């Protein structure tokens, strides 16, 4: 692994800590990404059937 990817990945994970609660930034990003996709899936309208024969 070389270049900026190596600089980005080849170090220990960064953790956020508040009292007993601790989470890595990576896991937090993945959870926030999933919540964003979930919100988009609920809010963004599904494309209509072009033939107009959807029940």
């Amino acid at each position, binding site marked *: 692994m070389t270049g900026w990817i190596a600089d980005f990945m080849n170090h220990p994970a960064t953790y956020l800590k508040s009292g007993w609660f601790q989470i890595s930034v990576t896991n937090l990003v*993945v959870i926030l*990404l*999933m919540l964003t*996709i*979930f919100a*988009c*899936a*609920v809010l*963004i309208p*599904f494309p*209509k*059937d072009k033939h107009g024969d*959807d*029940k």
Partner: protein
Amino acid sequence: MSEMWTAKLRNKWQKELPIEKLLPDDQPAYVASWIYVFGVLTLAALAMIIFSGIILAFQGPAWYHTSHAGKFTNSLHFWSVQLFFVFMVIHLWGKFWMAAWRGKRFATWATGAVAFIASIATAFTGYLVQTNFDSQWISFEAKDGFNSVGVGAWFTVTNLGQMLLLHVAFLPLILGAITVVHVLMVRKRGVVPPIDAQPSTDSEVGR
């Protein structure tokens, strides 16, 4: 009337899951929402996991640790698992908030929950059989956890042979079987309607 068990099974199958329900070409209007897409996305990711996993099993670690094609297939397997879990968790959230166990769909919900747990076990054993320093680190950390709850002698995370067989044989069989049952249950009861929707057919209320 035949009393053969095969005839009884066939009649029961035809009554509860006719081919029109098994392979429908039409869905209720409420299915036209992105949140209903994540179940089949999870299945697509699972198909890619199985496909890349079979290649990895045939070629072996000496191939997937060294060659470009091997590293690519290894990464394909890994990232398919990441997408599998992302899609499955969003599918789980969607089904939880629409109370998808309504209309006699408890077995559908329960098989989904068991599939989720089986997926975690399969992914965990996958991390343990990478045959690299990462898997060594994870197994040596995990053994203390399993020993502390008294199952370390039975489920030995540092035993590569046991973890490999669980990952490539036993757990995929369990997960595959549960997934098939889960999909058949979905086809039998139909896709769960939104809470405020008026069901128009018996299948939509699960009767």
